[in-house]
């Protein structure tokens, strides 16, 4: 049986439509039996040429709305980073009040995004009731966002040199009501996710990313922090109203006293960050300075300033998934941007996926991959290729999901026995 020529490794391409988050990406998993030996990540299925639009078609103000559509879930992070880059390039300083409003909206987005992820993670391992519970809880913050910005998803709050809508005193009680609701429900969520024995078995020691690998592979956001990298743009960099607050990057050891860097730790980090976001919003409401919200309300005038301006700038913001960075170069006399480079956090976190999945089982692929909260855009099928006979067999989304669910059932049955 040890004959080298007889060794059967299979390549299982998972994707381009992926079971975890319904966004197109392909993971070519090389497997030996049930164990994953190597993974190759293939991206590019949803490359829409957004940077090209910004450099060739749109003016800097129109770009805010394009940036907002880079991602439906991080539709605050991209405009946030983008306007900071433009403001730096053109030398515009936004008013203090606007900085606070930006932070409030950005933190609301973090709450909704982490809850959305928690629901997806529960679905991946087959806990549909938890999935429904979490997504019902998430509706509360979606309603609040609609109340403040007029929209649930693309909120169009940001403008170069400020924000487009104010948050007034009359709106504070409604915001506080939602925050109080999350405070009361927080412990329930914590029990559901962290104390359940089956969830613990499915997520502990699965998809481990060691601190050194995380540093070398540049992992950021909750993925990096769960491995013990204390990197959080809100803590590290002086920007917006975050600079006024003493924010501390959350690592899982504050709750569990150890850092393993597995899926469980990523759940811990995200849950604690929801609490942190609530605290940040409360502080912003208390300390919000009065004043203007926009430096230049006349758009034509602002556009003219931007057309004349020359320079370059970098904007970084801690999106729910990690550091989001925009680089902008303006050339005097040019209507569009000269250069626009966007880097979303998943771009770097994807590089950590092969390391995470090595040694795992195929049934662990959905939850381990979903644990970085990838934001690419969806999977219908996986093709199993037998490298020896070159035969292809089809593993559908449902089958792969079923594998993942069955593993959970098996474990909980063993527990019950």
């Amino acid at each position: 049986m040890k004959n080298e020529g007889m060794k059967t490794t299979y390549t299982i391409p998972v994707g381009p439509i992926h079971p975890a988050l319904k966004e197109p990406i392909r993971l070519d998993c090389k497997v030996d039996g049930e164990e994953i030996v190597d993974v190759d990540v293939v991206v590019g299925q949803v490359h829409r040429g957004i940077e090209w639009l910004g450099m060739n078609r749109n003016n800097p103000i129109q770009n805010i709305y394009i940036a907002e559509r880079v991602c439906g879930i991080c539709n605050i992070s991209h405009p946030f980073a983008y306007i900071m880059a433009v403001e730096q390039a053109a030398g515009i300083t936004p008013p203090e009040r606007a900085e606070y409003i930006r932070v409030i909206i950005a933190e609301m987005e973090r709450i909704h995004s982490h809850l959305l992820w928690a629901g997806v993670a529960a679905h991946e391992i087959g806990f549909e009731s938890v999935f429904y519970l979490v997504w019902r809880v998430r509706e509360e913050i979606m309603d609040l966002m609609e109340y403040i910005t007029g929209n649930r998803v693309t909120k169009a709050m940001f403008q170069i040199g400020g924000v487009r809508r104010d948050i007034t005193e009359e709106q504070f009680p409604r915001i506080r009501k939602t925050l109080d609701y999350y405070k009361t429900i927080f412990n329930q969520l914590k029990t559901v996710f962290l104390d359940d024995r089956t969830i613990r078995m499915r997520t502990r020691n699965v998809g481990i990313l060691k601190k050194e690998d995380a540093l070398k592979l540049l992992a950021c956001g909750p993925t990096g922090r769960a491995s013990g990298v204390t990197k959080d743009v809100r803590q590290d960099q002086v920007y917006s109203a975050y600079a006024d607050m003493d924010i501390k990057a959350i690592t899982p050891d504050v709750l569990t006293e150890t850092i393993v860097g597995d899926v469980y730790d990523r759940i811990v980090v995200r849950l604690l960050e929801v609490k942190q976001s609530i605290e940040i919003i409360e502080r912003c409401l208390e300390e919000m300075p009065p004043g203007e919200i926009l430096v230049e309300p006349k758009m034509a005038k602002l556009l003219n300033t931007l057309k004349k301006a020359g320079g370059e700038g970098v904007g970084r913001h801690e999106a729910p998934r990690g550091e989001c960075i925009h680089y902008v170069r303006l050339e005097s006399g040019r209507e569009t941007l000269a250069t626009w480079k966007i880097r979303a956090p998943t771009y770097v976190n994807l590089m950590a996926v092969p390391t995470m999945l090595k040694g795992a089982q195929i049934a662990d692929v959905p939850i381990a991959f979903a644990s970085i909260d990838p934001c690419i855009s969806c999977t219908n099928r996986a093709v199993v290729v037998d490298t020896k006979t070159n035969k292809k067999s089809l593993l559908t989304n449902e089958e792969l999901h079923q594998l993942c669910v069955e593993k959970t059932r098996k474990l909980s049955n063993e527990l019950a026995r």
Partner: protein
Amino acid sequence: MEILSPEEIVESFKTALGASFVNAKIYQREVAVKKNLFQSIWIYVKRDAFRQAVEHICKLQEYPHLAVISSSDLGDSVELIYHFTIYYGHHLKELSLGLCLNLPKNDLKIPTITDIIPGALFTERETQEMMGVEVVGIPDNRRLFLPEDFPEGVYPWRKDEKGPYDMLRVLPGREKK
């Protein structure tokens, strides 16, 4: 780890790189109510000292964070900026450090840094396919985002004749630009 001020960092680059150091810029701005100082550094180096400069950044912090490589078509040349952040993990001490290089259009080559920072692979592959800058010694030479059937020698970020302008769809009744 000792945290240097932006001026000290610029000085340290000057001594480490000698004649290959071209220029440096420091950007500062006061932020929000407490008026803390946002700072970023731009360092311009010659290509021959590029790897030396990256190694020097690794001396400032053992694992610097390389966010992305941006590239701009400046007509006769291409400017690459390696966007690093150093001193992360320390409250409000993080610095953005842009390492800038100018490559002439007739010799678009840059050595890889994946041996120093393994996570640089994706962004190097992207720079290669989008701007046509050859990354010498890159461990994985495939395309990243562009499809396999995308024509050779067309680079979407270029503003010269190698740009994708022939591939644009012209709407009915409109002239090609």
